[in-house]
């Protein structure tokens, strides 16, 4: 029984198929960047305090939220579509030093005082914390 043999011929330089494949992959790459690397400006900040959601606040307001936890008083500031820890009672001050956040999925955590703030948008962004 003879098997049908596929013979491949080496063709000269660039061919239609090659160009097509490269073009399609370029389009795919652009599409992939646009789809999977979206940075959406958030509209709501969720404040979590002592393991519970303290509340959702619109980012488009000027507001200060004072939370008194185990360590002392954390002050969260909301201003011009952004949010930050204005001050925190903890030793390291990591949360304060990270500054303002405004993109969906960004998150600031103060572990000693059990406060975290997270920016929410229309869709939930993925971050390492979900896993």
């Amino acid at each position, binding site marked *: 029984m003879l098997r049908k043999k596929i013979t491949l011929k080496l063709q000269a330089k660039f061919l239609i198929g090659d160009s097509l494949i490269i073009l399609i992959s370029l389009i795919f790459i652009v599409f992939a960047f646009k789809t*999977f*690397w979206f940075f959406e400006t958030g509209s709501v900040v969720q404040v979590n305090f002592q393991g519970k959601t303290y509340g959702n606040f619109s980012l488009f307001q000027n507001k200060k939220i004072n939370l008194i936890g185990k360590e002392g008083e954390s002050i969260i500031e909301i201003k011009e579509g952004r949010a930050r820890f204005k001050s925190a009672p903890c030793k390291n001050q990591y949360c304060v030093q990270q500054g303002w956040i405004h993109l969906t999925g960004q998150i600031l955590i103060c572990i000693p005082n059990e406060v975290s703030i997270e920016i929410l948008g229309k869709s939930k962004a993925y971050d390492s914390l979900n*896993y």
Partner: protein
Amino acid sequence: MTHSIIKIKTTLLDHQIAQLSAIAIGLSLIESVLPSPMPGVKPGIANIITLYTIYQFNFKTAMWVSVLRVFATSLILGQFLSPTFMLSLVGSILSLLTLYFAIKLPSKFLSPVGLSVLSSFAHIAGQLFLVRIWLIPHPSIYSLIPIYSVAALLFGFINGWITYHLLKRHNSI
């Protein structure tokens, strides 16, 4: 006294497969030493041998070379049956499957460059799929797709280009 020597009859093709696999294994080992910017972004130069074999021999031979390469390399590096090996195997199988269908297209249509790009995309697609369902079952994996696609296109193109020149030099067909 009897000599207990097991003799396996080998054909010329077996030897050729072994030789080609040896080159591919060598390339894989070289590649495993090279630093990588992030896990999974590798040039995949062993694929040059697979493509070369498809042109110089046939698909079946290339399949042998590719699968042998995956097994042997993992044994040498001590990764046999580890996640790295599984990823490598799934990537290779999917890439071979893609090549199997791609070479059925008229050969006027494709050169090694196109085949190489196709197979590297298939390779990374298989790996990401396995990572998604098994290793890191979380949608955040998708944000790696852009990086891996760029790498697939770039290295696929380069490998295809090298294969093309290799075949031209060896005056294939």
